[in-house]
């Protein structure tokens, strides 16, 4: 293979973004920034987000498209986290309880969501977006009326419902590091390990009978039909799996971040994750674990590096704008690529 073929295989956006990121790391010392801290930041954000990005894989593989409805899975995760806190479960157990409930709600929500998407074949992405949005609004009402009692979650003085941000400091903040007795190391080993575990499970899953069936539906629906695979069922399965992983992903995110963010916080959760996996080389129809790893690293790298570097050069914080342009530009690029559908 010559250079051109290699470039085509990698894709221009990836190369540009990769070079851009590399140049930022290189420029760190000249701008008086601490490269080690910068890299560390990138890794921490990688650990926070990797499972969320991973959650997109099943739906892409099953041909259900980019999961713009990720907020739905995220809400399931939020339910898991709040219930765990409500039950007063602390430490690693608390984390496990949160994950457990997250999975349960992820399955329920995902199943309903899957049924909806099956009714909307061909227009999944648009409908997914709006299912995600409306689920956020619906859950906003729930946060107001669900009978949570924990003092750590409700408003201290008056006000009804849960707070907008709930600290998990007393529960399972950075529990994945604490459990490994790595309190003083800033590298997110726990998150990386748990990501590897889930990545392994997912890649194993796609080698099972069920996973193979799902993949067949995604790559060639006619082939799948001729092979006797129940297409609708596989699609629902993929949606359930994606929602479940998104639910788990947000709990991992929270334990690293330190707060459970309710109400409108999950609204735009899907977009950065989708942008990340696309930057990693996935397309609307195909995604691998490698795409997840590369993409999350590049995307989070840019998010952590641009503010400090740009600030170092022109004393302005443009991170939000850059995030919007990069992430949506990437999604736009994927949507307009030829021969994707």
């Amino acid at each position, binding site marked *: 293979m010559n250079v051109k073929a290699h470039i085509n295989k990698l894709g221009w956006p990836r190369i540009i973004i990769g070079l851009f990121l590399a140049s930022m790391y290189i420029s760190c010392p000249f701008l008086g920034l601490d490269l080690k801290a910068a890299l560390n930041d990138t890794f921490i954000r990688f650990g926070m987000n990797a499972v969320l990005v991973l959650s997109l894989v099943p739906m892409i593989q099953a041909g259900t498209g980019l999961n*713009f409805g990720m907020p739905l899975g995220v809400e399931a995760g939020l339910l898991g986290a709040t219930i765990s806190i409500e039950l007063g479960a602390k430490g690693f157990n608390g984390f496990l309880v949160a994950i457990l409930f997250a999975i349960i709600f992820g399955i329920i929500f995902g199943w309903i969501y899957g049924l*909806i998407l099956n*009714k*909307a*074949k*061909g*227009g999944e*992405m*648009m*409908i997914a*977006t*709006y*299912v995600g*949005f*409306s689920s*956020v*609004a*619906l859950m*906003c*009402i729930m946060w*107001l*009326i669900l009978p949570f009692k924990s003092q750590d979650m409700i408003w201290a003085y008056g006000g*009804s*419902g849960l707070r907008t941000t709930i600290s998990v400091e007393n529960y399972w903040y950075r529990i994945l590091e604490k459990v490994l007795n790595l309190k003083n190391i800033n590298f997110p080993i726990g998150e990386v390990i748990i990501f590897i575990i889930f990545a392994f499970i997912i890649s194993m899953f796609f080698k099972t009978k069920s996973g193979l069936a799902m993949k067949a539906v995604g790559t060639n629906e006619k082939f799948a039909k001729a092979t006797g695979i129940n297409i609708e069922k596989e699609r629902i399965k993929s949606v359930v799996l994606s929602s479940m992983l998104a639910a788990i992903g947000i709990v991992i995110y929270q334990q690293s971040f330190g707060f459970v963010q309710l109400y409108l916080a999950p609204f735009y959760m899907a*977009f950065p994750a989708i942008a990340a996996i696309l930057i990693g080389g996935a397309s609307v129809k195909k995604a691998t674990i490698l795409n997840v790893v590369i993409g999350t690293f590049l995307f989070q790298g840019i998010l952590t590096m641009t503010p400090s570097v740009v600030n170092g050069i022109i004393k*302005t914080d*443009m991170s*939000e*704008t*850059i995030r*919007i*342009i990069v992430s*949506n*530009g990437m*999604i*736009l690029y994927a*949507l*307009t690529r*030829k021969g994707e*559908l």
Partner: protein
Amino acid sequence: MKKNLINNIVPILILTLIALVFPLSGLRVIPTIQEIVLRLSRNLFLVLSLLIPIVAGMGLNFGIVLGAMAGQIALIFITDWHIIGIQGIFLATIISIPFSVLLGILAGKILNKAKGREMITSMILGFFINGVYQLVVLYGMGNIIHITDKKLLLSRGYGVRNAVDLINVRRGLDSLINLKIYNVEIPIFTLLIIAGLGFFTIWFRKTKLGQDMRAVGQDMEVARSSGINVPKTRVLAIVISTVLAGFGQIIYLQNIGTMNTYNSHEQIGMFSIAALLVGGASSSKATIFNAISGVILFHMLFIVSPNAGKNIMGSAEIGEYFRVFISYGIVALTLVLHQWRRKKEKEYKRKKEMEAIMKGELNEKSI
């Protein structure tokens, strides 16, 4: 009859909901009517700007936010130049056109590359251009683009403030001709402009270009083989929609009187589309009547929900979230219904065709 009911299930549902909730909201009739008239004059133009791309088969154009941004940039300029009153509004309208046309062409070309998924693409395009808009307005203005009036800028010396006071053009259109009936103020001039757009839309559908768009919307392949320039026709549909949206945003903001530089446009696409869908439109069929009834119903919901929430659930917040839920849910629901109905219709048609063929066979035998 039954088909009609199913086709109009969304407006009927919403109407029932409003009818049930209105008495509980404790709102009085006249102020509510005033509010509706106000919102109609404020939003209807934007909603109408969605119609033409639907005719051209490009679905709900979330890209109207591009037009909204063009309108806002024009407003920033006239505010900076201190052009006030009705002249300011008209000048802003003129200035918005080149921006809208450029953005419209860009959007049209991009959507031509994403046939079959125009809606999601136009939505993401809206987000993307929003980033570019931020880059221009938040970092470029006062820096690269000259801004005379320093009061418009953030304290750091560049970038437009979060809120731009449009007091000098506020209600410039609305108050031009104003009528009061039973304590209800009616902004006649604005409504006349909206009516003008309505007639434009009706007229446009009957032109050659309108006919081409209808053809492209129904079957691109056939349209192409009959010599219609499909990509160009689609780009034109988007350009027209974007330009109109620019005007719409100016009308909207002159009524409100302040502009949230970085937020005013964001929700416009979403709300306009939700309103149109509430009026019984779908992503492939929409009428002016859908637009009008949609705006009325959707904004009734706006007005009623918080009060009803307060009176029923004891929390205005719940009502507010409920409204948000309904507006997003409606879009999801209509899209699902539409997709599902299309599938069913296709199946039904094939079945009928098959039956017709079988019947033809039988007839032949009996002859």
